[in-house]
């Protein structure tokens, strides 16, 4: 009897040791780099919060991987992002989720290319971010792809042929989308009847809207962020100008602008891979958790970063990354791994090729009764 008990105890102990070994999670050190202070803090905080929600989920689930999230602020500044990047590596980061905005990501990615550090950016969308580097991958569409996809959508769905474009010519994102939109639009037989610009300091859009109106535009394409877009919608409403307004992912968030009459946004169309009001199970889960933690509705940037954490885990699993690997050792393994995986995230089903650009289907939503509706 005693022997039996001893044997059982021994087996039990052995099992518990074995299970402990199996359960010992691999810790991935992921650094989020983005502007959490300064003028672009809205976007940096969104990606940080999105990533935090995912990290909490992963760590609470207690799976094979545990994540230690390091956050470094780059102030949306090309000089400071290098400091943030270096500080992240000093803190032991193995891979980087960032940078949130295009120009800083371009600078840090180039440094990472020399040092061999893997970058996955949630929202830096310019082509320069991934050009000439094998270490940077995007979750969002590149700007030219957005411009192209918008022109194709407008032409395919025959929304109109006379198009006005209002864009921010001091902004990389805006000019990038505008360039390919105009190019592709002309090829598809769209007529650009009016093209006007503004800069970050502009608060009055009377001239731009009047120009579009006088040119008889049927569609006004707005490759801009939602704050100026809200002012443009207001100005157009005052002038009784009612074309179809067509935006891109920067338009996402227009319904949450404070003091903005959302009825003005009725009928606005936008290309976006993520809408917070979707009834998809994964999206609802994310939005609920995000709202509980930060008391606001997540924008697309947050969703991209949330997906980013899961993409990094999937790539790390494929590549066999362990806790003690350095960023340099992990880089090439991750580059190979991310090209082999498909991730079904809340912003769509994504795959990557060696260029670093993501492949996923763009979706156009229309604002109806203050909510996004997919066609």
């Amino acid at each position, binding site marked *: 009897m005693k022997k039996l008990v001893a044997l059982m105890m021994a087996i039990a102990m052995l099992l518990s040791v074995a299970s402990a070994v199996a359960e010992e999670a691999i810790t991935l050190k992921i650094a989020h780099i983005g502007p*959490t*202070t300064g003028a672009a803090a809205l976007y940096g905080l969104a990606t940080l919060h999105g990533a935090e929600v995912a990290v909490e989920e992963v760590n609470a689930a207690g799976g094979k991987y545990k994540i230690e999230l390091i*956050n*470094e*602020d780059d102030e949306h*500044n*090309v*000089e*400071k992002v*290098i*400091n943030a*990047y*270096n*500080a992240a*590596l*000093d803190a032991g980061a193995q891979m980087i989720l960032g940078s949130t905005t295009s*120009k800083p990501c*371009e*600078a840090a990615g*180039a*440094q990472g290319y020399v040092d061999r550090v893997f970058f996955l950016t949630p929202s830096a969308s*310019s082509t*320069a971010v991934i*050009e*000439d580097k094998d270490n940077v991958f995007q979750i969002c569409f590149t700007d030219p792809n957005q411009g192209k996809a918008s022109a194709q959508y407008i032409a395919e769905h025959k929304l109109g042929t006379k198009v006005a474009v209002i864009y921010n*010519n*001091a*902004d*990389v994102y805006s*000019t*990038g989308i505008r*360039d390919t939109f105009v190019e592709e639009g002309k090829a598809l037989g769209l007529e650009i009847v009016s093209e006007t610009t503004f800069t970050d300091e502009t608060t009055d859009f009377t001239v731009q809207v009047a120009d579009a109106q006088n040119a008889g535009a049927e569609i006004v394409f707005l490759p801009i962020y939602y704050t100026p877009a809200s002012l443009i919608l207001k100005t157009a409403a005052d002038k009784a100008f009612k074309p179809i307004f067509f935006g891109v992912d920067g338009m996402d968030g227009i319904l949450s602008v404070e003091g903005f009459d959302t009825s003005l946004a009725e009928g606005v169309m936008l290309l976006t891979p993520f809408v917070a009001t979707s009834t998809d199970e994964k999206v609802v889960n994310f939005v609920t958790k995000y709202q509980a933690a930060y008391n606001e509705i997540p924008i697309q940037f947050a969703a991209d970063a949330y997906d980013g954490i899961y993409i990094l885990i999937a790539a790390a699993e494929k590549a066999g990354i362990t806790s003690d690997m350095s960023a340099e050792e992990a880089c090439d393994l991750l580059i190979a791994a991310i090209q082999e995986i498909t991730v079904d995230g809340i912003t769509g089903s994504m795959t990557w090729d060696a260029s670093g650009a993501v492949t996923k289907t763009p979706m156009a939503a229309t604002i109806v009764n203050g909510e996004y509706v997919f066609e």
Partner: protein
Amino acid sequence: MKMTKAKRNKLIYNIVTFALVIGAFLILQSMIANKTITRSLKGQLVPICCWIVMAVSLNLVIGISGELSLGHAGFMSVGAYTGAVVSGLLINVYDIQDATLRLVVAIVAGGLLSGIVGALIGIPVLRLRGDYLAIVTLAFGEIIRNLVNVLYIGTGDGRLYASFLNKKLPEGVTMLVDGAKGAVKIKPISTFTAGFILVLITLVVVLNLVNSRAGRAIKACRDNRIAAESMGVNVTKYKMMAFVTAAVLAGMAGALYGLNSSTVVPTQFTFNQSINVLVFVVLGGLGNVLGSVISATLLTILPEMLRAFADYRMLVYAVVLILVMIFTNNPTILSFMKRLIAPFKRKDVTGGDAQ
């Protein structure tokens, strides 16, 4: 040779300045060699050199010649863009692979162009009395930023292409400056040694100028314009000398700064950046070159040291700035500090007398 006390003090001041800079360079170089330096500090070395040159050169305008310049970042951007274009031209068109040669040519070109721009601004404005220079340099900084926003430069088939307002460059051109996207695809070639040499050149130029006959004339114009004029000092000429020298140095710093990164954007050189340099100068002490060197270094490193405070970082940074300003200007604290160092000082003086 017998020295007057003022002369000896100046010599000591200069020796201390150079000793500090060279000492810091040697310590950092040995840290790099031993690999004991953190990535974070190593990455900041070249920007620190650039900001030192910026602060010292602005001090020449504000502290020594007594004119207020609010567009110093504008000169820096002229240098940064020139540096990026020249370096790109040398490698793409003339196929010069030697990084040091490209860096030197780019820095010289950046300084020259910035100096020409400085002279163009200075000729009409420095003839006027009052705060016109502040207003004009303020406008200049903004104009430069908006001009480079619509500037397109590229190289292709052994030629340099440039376009203004619209991107009308032929197909297949390698872009060097791409409008709002800034200077792109720069091959970073700046090194800490180059930065150190630039700081040394700046110190030699500025300290020599300040302690020369011309420097005394510049200070005379600052202290009392009418008295200086009545002594036969050509006020405009000497003010120009200080202003253009500062512009050249800022242009050189800009070229070094631009070539340290893979990309440069117009939004880096805003009015805020000019004010940032002004803060270095004011905190270091107007007219105090060593003070500018120290404050530019500390205030560049400080925000990085405060990363541990995360979101409260810039708040803490502001508080530190205010505290430094209070401490360096409070008479009680100053007299307390004086009393603290008095015993050592007295010994020094008696030692000096005995010689």
